[in-house]
């Protein structure tokens, strides 16, 4: 070792350079993610400026809870990418001192989304299915009714996947225990190339796919009956 100090110095320089490369790559990734979130904010304040609505924060968790009149609420805080308000007959009711949004759906597909576009996102929806029969989808990265990602529940099955130009790709599907079901919280996480669906605190589905461009977050119904929503929590997920 003593007869080759130049070699040792060379090694040290290369190791330090490699470490620096790793850091700069990480910095670039953070910048890209920030741009996606910023794009979402611009979209919210640009294309949909006419709505005086609940805007999803690009930096912290937004918890949406129903208030006011059902039809006004849906028109104010959301817009439809499939169907219309008449298909879901929204009514704001009080249950146990809390406002809830009751939807009475027809068989045709309806999808309402917040006005902001979000990139990586966590969503928690607390709902009660009651006599609802059919599929409920928590959708995200939605461009339109033909291109979106979702976690859906139908009876005791949770499915996670994406639809691109009307073509569906299922990432994962699993059954869950729906005994004594009352209010349930469906949690969805879209973090980079990892997509997860939880029922309460229990992970049910976990799939992988390419990261999609930022899109809308909302709820899609494909079923008949009464569906009650207590809250929708939306959290932007930031890269570290």
């Amino acid at each position, binding site marked *: *070792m003593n007869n*080759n100090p130049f*070699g040792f110095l060379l*090694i040290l320089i*290369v*190791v330090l350079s*490699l*470490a620096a490369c*790793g850091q700069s790559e990480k910095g670039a990734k953070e910048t890209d993610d920030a741009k996606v979130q910023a794009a979402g904010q611009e979209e919210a304040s640009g294309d949909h400026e006419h709505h005086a609505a609940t805007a999803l924060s690009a930096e912290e*968790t937004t918890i949406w809870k129903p208030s006011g009149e059902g039809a006004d609420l849906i028109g104010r805080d959301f817009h439809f990418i499939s169907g219309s308000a008449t298909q879901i007959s929204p009514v704001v009711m009080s249950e146990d001192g809390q406002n809830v949004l009751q939807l009475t759906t027809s068989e045709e597909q309806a999808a309402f989304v917040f006005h902001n576009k979000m990139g*990586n996102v*966590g969503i*928690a929806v607390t709902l009660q299915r009651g006599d609802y029969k059919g599929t409920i989808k928590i959708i995200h990265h939605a461009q339109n009714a033909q291109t979106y990602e979702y976690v859906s529940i139908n009876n005791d099955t949770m499915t996670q996947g994406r639809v691109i130009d009307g073509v569906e790709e299922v990432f994962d599907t699993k059954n869950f225990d729906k005994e004594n079901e009352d209010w349930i919280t469906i949690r969805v*996480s879209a*973090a*980079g*190339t*990892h997509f*997860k669906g*939880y029922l309460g*605190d*229990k*992970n049910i589905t*976990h799939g992988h796919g390419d990261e999609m461009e930022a899109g809308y977050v909302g709820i899609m119904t494909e079923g008949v009956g009464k569906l009650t929503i207590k809250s929708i929590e939306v*959290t932007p*997920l*930031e*890269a*570290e």
Partner: protein
Amino acid sequence: MQLAPEWVPNLHPLVVHFPIALLSLAVAVSLVEVFYKPEWINRSRLWLYILGSLSLVVTLLSGRAAADSVSPPFSAEMTLSNHSDSAYTVLWYFLAFTLIQLVLPRFVKVDKTWIRLVYFLIACFGLSLLITTGELGAKLVYKYGVGTP
């Protein structure tokens, strides 16, 4: 038979330190081998990379199971995803590097100093990937409390 004590949420925290220790030592031996080339050091290096890579496989599988058994807060999901992606990169990197070290000597004389130096530099880059992965895992536990009561 229960593999882990009941207070351990899953196997991942028990096995995760094996690849860190084995591969760090392997990289250190690679450095020594740039300057000294006795056969026993050569064998030690190869075995450390083989055992390190195998322990990476076990650690990654236990990590996959662990990721689906916990319910992290949303704020931790990106870190969890990056930790997982980074772990796969480390696994493929060291598997490929170990395979190269096993196969290459059959075709090329590898006891030249410059080849040992290249081995060491490749190993250093792998070690930096391993450190990044470990840092993300540590952040999950100590910043977000994932897997803790």
